[in-house]
């Protein structure tokens, strides 16, 4: 059996991995009709007591929808996080996004 590569780096208690991935998969970019996880925009999530930190990118530095997507990520995570958790979403441009980050499902949808 082959295991699929993790869609993003995760550090923190194992019990939070699934709820966080689930929350991130609810953020959809309607332009590409896919979740931000399938497009490969989420680089890393770290979970510490009282503070969640997400590192993600966008496909374009000229994208005006960036703030809306970052806020959606924050909102979805706050819905599953324990009360009082601080959720930080950090936008980075390095390393730049490439098609290698797309999930198998995303690539199949786009005809790869």
């Amino acid at each position, binding site marked *: 059996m082959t295991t699929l590569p993790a869609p993003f780096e995760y550090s923190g208690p194992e019990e939070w991995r699934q709820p966080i991935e689930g929350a991130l998969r609810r953020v959809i970019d309607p*332009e590409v*009709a896919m979740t931000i996880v399938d497009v490969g925009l989420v680089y890393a999530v770290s979970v510490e007591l009282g503070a969640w930190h997400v590192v993600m990118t966008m*496909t374009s530095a*000229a994208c005006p*929808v*960036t703030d*809306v997507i970052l806020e959606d990520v924050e909102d979805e995570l706050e819905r599953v996080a324990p009360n009082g958790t601080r959720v930080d979403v950090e936008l980075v441009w390095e390393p730049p996004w490439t*098609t290698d980050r797309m999930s198998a499902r995303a690539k199949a949808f786009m005809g*790869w």
Partner: protein
Amino acid sequence: MRRQDSSSTKTRRISLRAGFMALVAASLAYGIAGGLFRAGVSLGEFAAAPWLPQAVLGHAFLMVSSFLGTVIGLERAVALKHPAAFVSPAASGLSGIALLTGYPAYASILAAVAAVAFVGVNIVVVARQRAAHTALLLVAAVAWMLGALLHATSAPTQGVISWWLAFLVLTIAAERMEMTRLMRRRKGASEALVGVLAALAVGSAASSVASTSGLGSVLYGLSLVGLSAWLLLYDIARRTVTTTGLSRYMAICLLLGYGWMAVAGVAWVGTSLGLPWRDAALHGIALGFVFSMIFGHAPVILPALVRLKLIYSWAFYVPLALLHLSLFARLLLPNWLPGAARLGSAANALAIALFALVVLSSILAWRVKYSPATNQHGNALDT
């Protein structure tokens, strides 16, 4: 990460947003009024309005520089998140007011300032992300600047219009190019696109010089047909059209737009050969292509630009259908149906007004559904 604005900062942001919205809406409304008059549509009591002559003469200026230049400038400024980036949309927005209040020379200067500032903004974007699509956004900004400078120096219309529309076409092409990165491309696809876009630029340049204007227009038209074919082949819209909801609606807008781009390209060549297809050449691009993009992207761009969320629904298809049916009547039927051009133009304007109405009611629907009292989660990008 969420910024806690102080109430004074928040008030300033809201008034700035309202100010920009008013400038954009004014340019659009008066630009359309000028266009309707040109098409021979009766404007009733507005026919004697003091602003009408300027709106008629400056129809293209209002639509391209004051309306779309401001919207695109705002889009880029929001992405860049730097206050100085708002100089460009402020200047282009005010250029419309200057024109309508009887100061066309100042309007041209303001538009040129806006376009030069916009080139600066795009240089910063390229520095932030060195990629083919950001470089193309910069080329688009340069096209606007050349058009604005030619307009300010009262150069012949053909060159000005070619650069202005190239600005819009290149901007949208760059944004689509970014999306096509998600698709697997055949070998040589990128080179083909560069070739087509270079032809568009050379066509614009040649159109600006009297001795090569005819040849330039032929090249311009052919490059539009080529770009349309490239986008139909490689845009993700071909894939996302099979989905549902907002994603499918956006894809349909894109594909219809690419179809009109091809029609406009053929009409552009025909016009340069002496055929009476000028309206199809100009408005196949400006309405068929550009407004299709606006209709398609407003549901996702508006929440980003003006912080107004909305609920997408099937109602968005109504103005879209009206726009395309009325364009068909206006651009393709006049040979057989006298009056189709005028009726089609009036229905074009109605489609845009109807679209604004659908957007407003979708914003209201979001407010009702996710009002703070109900304390529910509201995602702007409901699909």
